[in-house]
């Protein structure tokens, strides 16, 4: 079966800058796919290539098995919501939503009916005659969404549509987007650099780094099984501990910590460790903390306790180079007697750790 949307080997060069190096991706029909990555990692550029505003230097994009690169933007029938507000300022809300329909030569009656439907989809009934300037940022983006969906595009692109809104409003509209996605079954490619937003909305997430996709997967996969140190750092919180590689056995390694402890069976994803060193990932919330000295892997002393609402962050000095952060749920048994300076010991499940190369992965090019 041909995949719904297939991006193969896309690259884009601006003069000396490689904005996108090699992006490969397959998206299923009706999927909510999020591009997550730091600023400048090539998310928007990939989206613009899909929209047809930029031509790729290399690579191809296939929709239902056919290339769309030869189709100009205005004939691609793709919807898009932009980061900045792009409502046509001289047209009313209704006229904005009607614009793509007029362009397509719909009849007046059909347009009126469709505009009404779309307004109710984004819950802005009655705003038809408003001018965009008289609306809040959140409302404007909802109208933009209605406009982009009015002509039933097979693919909807969204480039950080909520980044200009405050946190509360953002969460509210995230909900709306999720609902609308379920209601319309449109395929969505969504760009953000906010991991929480990505986790909340997406079926799958593609993590961008320096013009390539580091890993694609559900939020859980990315969190539990990051394939690079970069992904591990980007999704969830992390401690990285420098270790010596004692031996590698298939996809597992035996590592020696600076305090002399040796742990065996650390998952490596087949990483090729250079210079016999590795970086060990410990998720702060996957570390168990017990009071008192014991023969746990990581004995240490409490350095600092920070109350963070529904959890407590404990920073522990061990014999390692940097303190290790531990996150305990509010009400955790150990919290009662905890105070700075107290002896504690840390423990973790080796299967939940990962070993990466010391440095960030060297780009493939």
């Amino acid at each position, binding site marked *: 079966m041909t995949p719904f949307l297939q991006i193969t080997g896309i690259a884009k060069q601006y003069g000396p800058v490689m904005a996108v190096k090699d992006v490969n991706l397959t998206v299923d029909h009706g999927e909510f796919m999020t591009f997550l990555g730091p600023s400048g990692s090539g998310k928007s550029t990939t989206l613009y290539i899909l929209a047809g505003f930029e031509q790729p230097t290399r690579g191809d994009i296939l929709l239902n098995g056919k290339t769309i690169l030869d189709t100009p*933007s205005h004939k691609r029938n793709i919807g898009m919501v932009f980061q900045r507000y792009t409502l*046509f300022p001289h047209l009313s809300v209704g006229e904005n939503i009607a614009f793509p329909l007029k362009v397509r030569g719909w009849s007046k009656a059909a347009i009126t009916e469709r505009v009404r439907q779309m307004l109710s989809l984004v819950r802005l009934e009655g705003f038809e005659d408003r001018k965009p300037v008289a609306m809040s940022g959140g409302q404007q983006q909802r109208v*933009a969404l209605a406009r982009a969906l009015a002509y039933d595009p097979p693919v909807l692109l969204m480039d950080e549509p909520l980044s200009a809104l405050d946190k509360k409003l953002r969460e509210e509209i995230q909900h709306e987007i999720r609902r609308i996605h379920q209601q319309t079954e449109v395929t969505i490619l969504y760009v953000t650099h906010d991991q929480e937003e990505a986790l909340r909305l997406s079926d799958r997430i593609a993590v961008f780094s320096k013009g390539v996709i580091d890993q694609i997967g559900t939020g859980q996969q990315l969190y539990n099984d990051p394939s690079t140190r970069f992904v591990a750092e980007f999704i969830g919180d992390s401690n990285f501990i420098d270790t010596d590689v004692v031996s590698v056995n298939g996809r597992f390694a035996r590592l020696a910590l600076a305090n002399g402890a040796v742990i065996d069976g650390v998952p490596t994803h087949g990483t090729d460790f250079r210079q016999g060193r590795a970086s060990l990932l410990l998720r702060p919330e996957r570390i168990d903390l017990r009071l008192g000295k014991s023969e746990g892997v990581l004995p240490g002393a409490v350095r600092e306790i920070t109350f963070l609402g529904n959890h407590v962050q404990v920073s522990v000095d061990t014999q390692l180079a940097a303190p290790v952060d531990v996150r305990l749920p509010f009400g955790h048994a150990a919290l009662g007697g905890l105070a700075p300076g107290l002896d504690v010991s840390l423990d973790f499940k080796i299967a939940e750790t990962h070993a990466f190369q010391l440095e960030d992965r060297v780009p493939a090019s």
Partner: protein
Amino acid sequence: MLLNFNSLGIWKWALLTITVLTAAFLLMPILFIAALSFGSSQWLIFPPPSWTLKWYGALLSDPRWLEAAWTSFRIALIVTFFSVLIGLVASFGLVRGRFMGRSTLRALFMTPMILPVVVLAVALYAFFLRIGLNGTTTGFVIAHLIVALPFSILALTGALEGFDKSIEDAAVLCGASPLRAKLQITLPCISHGLFSAAIFSFLTSWDEVVLAIFMASPTLQTLPVKIWATLRQDLTPVIAAASTLLIIVTVLLMLIAAAVKKGLKA
């Protein structure tokens, strides 16, 4: 506290005096001319011994003045059209293009504005003599277009820089062809820029003297050329009448411009 009007003490009065005197200095000649144009004295005695409309009568019944005004108007309209059109197309390229030498091109387009117009006038005069454009409407239009275009480009590049291209992109993704998106979405959004470009172009051509003196022929002259030629002979009050009418046109255009600006803000 020099930027707080009320804590300036005695300086406040000194500054106000200078400003009021300067405003009077700037306003006086304009009011003076308007008054003289209604004065009865051929010798421009002030205050006039009595009031009259005869200079306006003389002006408006003289076909040479009327023809000069019509010529000016016609040329200014054509110049405005081409200046806005060419300036608009060029501004798109200047603002959005990624080719090399863009800033050099911009500086080149601005030079007619800072170059002494007499040099351009003499140079074009020589050129037009050779190719037979002297004393023709085309010659006038080209000459005025050269000096109007910088204003048009300045206004339109400014407007386009303030316009978020994503809005046009959104229209294109909605299915509008790039041309349609520009016409139906971008142009309405930069209408204030188009409007200033048009007003500046019109006034530049309408008021232009030096080029016009060199382009004019006995059969084709603009209003400023007619005034210039008359002025060199004597200071007849008919010129005061003509000047007053010109001032009224200017004031009207300024008021329209202000109204449009206000309307855009609201």
